[in-house]
């Protein structure tokens, strides 16, 4: 058993499902498409928005909470950034700053209700999910906010796509990496610093481990909970900006159901839904596993039925695989 000791570590267990998925990819490589870097560059781009949401979700889940509002908050951000940069003609920096503040504010609102009134996170963020979707529709008038703008005199014209959008939806390092992937990496790094290097991170784990014990040992539990939801809101805002940039418009319907994918990425990595255990490294592995599986299914043009069933199957496999080892640890 000693040779398998690495399997007892949480990262070891998270890597096995990823390895299985890679193996599937090598077997069904579709004339070598799976071995090309462009495939993986595309896959890394595709998981980036969800991965950014998953970073915030990791912070919340570590505290034993859940944030169902990320998909809707992301839509608010996508609509806002599109409104500000295209019809209103703001610069990228000021628009980004304002959208980040808006996302953080929505996260803070959820966090305040949870921390101050001790309402269950599931309920509060469910309410925020509905509210924020309404807000996105209100801001956009129910339509996509595009670069086709109506001028004050009533006529319409097409404005150039904002530099912010073009920058985010481009590739760097000799066209080998999408910018959104770098943004995802940056978000993961921030999450890692918060969780592993800051006192606040210890507090997040402590609150997730046992709320009462944390409170009694002098952890500022209220502020800690507030921080996790505020950061989740901010990450959702970043995800929304990336989504708008890649779609070249702000869609008030965007991000519907993304919260579940983000939760799946976190849980697939091995972060415990009951809080206190996990980390962003695991979430990265979870994100890669799901993303790569989707890519392989897409490359092979599997039917939707097969895709859904296989994805469900892999999820069950990954979760079951983690169980026996967890009880021994």
């Amino acid at each position, binding site marked *: 058993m000693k040779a398998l000791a690495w399997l007892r570590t949480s990262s070891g267990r998270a890597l096995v499902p990823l390895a299985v998925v890679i193996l599937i990819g090598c077997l069904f490589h579709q004339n070598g498409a799976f071995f090309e870097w462009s495939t993986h560059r595309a896959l890394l781009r595709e998981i980036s928005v969800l991965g950014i949401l998953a970073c915030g979700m990791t912070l919340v889940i570590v505290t034993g909470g859940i944030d169902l509002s990320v998909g809707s908050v992301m839509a608010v951000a996508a609509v806002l950034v599109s409104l500000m940069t295209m019809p209103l003609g703001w610069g990228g920096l000021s628009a980004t700053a304002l959208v980040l503040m808006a996302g953080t504010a929505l996260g803070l609102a959820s966090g305040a209700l949870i921390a101050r009134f001790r309402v269950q996170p599931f309920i509060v963020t469910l309410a925020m999910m509905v509210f924020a979707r309404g807000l996105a529709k209100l801001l956009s008038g129910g*339509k996509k906010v595009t670069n086709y703008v109506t001028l004050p005199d009533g006529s319409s014209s097409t404005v150039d796509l904002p530099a912010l959008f073009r920058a985010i939806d481009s590739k760097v390092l000799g066209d080998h990496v999408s910018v959104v992937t770098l943004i995802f990496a940056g978000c993961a790094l921030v999450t890692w610093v918060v969780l592993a290097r800051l006192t606040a991170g210890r507090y997040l784990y402590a609150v997730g481990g046992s709320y009462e014990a944390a409170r009694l040992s002098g952890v500022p539990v209220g502020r800690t909970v507030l921080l996790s939801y505020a950061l989740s809101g901010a990450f959702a805002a970043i995800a929304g900006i990336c989504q708008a940039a890649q779609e070249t418009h702000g*869609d008030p319907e965007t991000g519907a159901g993304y919260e579940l994918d983000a939760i799946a990425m976190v849980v697939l990595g091995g972060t415990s839904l009951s809080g206190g255990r996990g980390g962003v490294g695991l979430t990265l592995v979870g994100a890669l596993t799901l993303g790569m599986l989707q890519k392989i299914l*897409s490359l092979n043009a599997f039917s939707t039925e097969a895709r859904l069933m296989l994805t469900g199957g892999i999820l069950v496999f990954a979760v079951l695989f983690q169980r026996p080892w967890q009880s021994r640890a």
Partner: protein
Amino acid sequence: MHAPTQAALVTGCALALGACKPSAKSDAAPSASASAQRGTAQSPWLIGMSQCNLGEPWRVQMNQDVKLAAEKHPNLKVVFKDAQNDSLRQRAQVEELVAQKIDLLIISPKEAAPLTQPVAEAHRKKIPVIVLDRGVQGDEFTTFIGADNVKIGREAGKWAVKALGGKGLIVELEGLMTSTPGQDRHKGFREGLELEKHPDLKVVFEADMQWLEPNARKEMESALTTQKKIDLVYAHNDPGAHGAYLAAKAASRDKEMKLIGIDALPHEGVEYVKQGILDATFLYPTGGVEAIDTALDLLAGKSVPKKVVLGTRAFTKDNVSLGGEAIP
């Protein structure tokens, strides 16, 4: 009244209908007995518009078409209800509208079966019912107005054959294939391609993108990786075609292929064609304007056909500035 005359009336322009307005006051309209003064600017006809889901831009457009068409007639007032994609909520909303004593009901139902009963009850209370886009079961409604997805798909297929000169490699990005519009747009397209007559025409990649742009971009990226050459992409909606364009552009292959979509919303597909992003888009008409025209006829006591199938319009770079080309 003969069918052609009726059809002409239905598709008649608002001006012609404006001439009907005086008769709307004098003629014995369906509920005129209850309120003799209905149908004037002071006491306008009350129309209930039950929309199944305003989460889709196309349905937002439908409501807007109804609203703008109705605003031209001061003797009409429209109350809008959004069922948020819930059949039972829509059922309740239809009942609310009937209780509100509307003079006419326009409904775009979410599903046929659960809404057949409430629509039939409204119809039995002598409220004229115009069913838009999706049908209800039986015949207890006044008229159905809708478009034909198979026909529109077929037009897209024929356009593709012509644009490719009868040979080439095609990618099809499908709408939700468990939905009737997805199936019909697929079926029609394949009929239009006539693959048996064009052996050099091949559909090399098809994937279900579930009407969603981000999914379409992902699937297109897979198509670009596995297919060294793509001559045309047909997406079942314009957002899907736009997603495909973004993927092709990111791979610097957008010049290699033609892109076509369906729906042709003014601020979406038509605009994409204007900007040169799409090569063609085919209108899936909302029927909003036609519904108001028909409503005016019905309120004026005229009879209308039981079913009206709307035509489509093709928008290409050559005709987009002229408002597209009608395909009846």
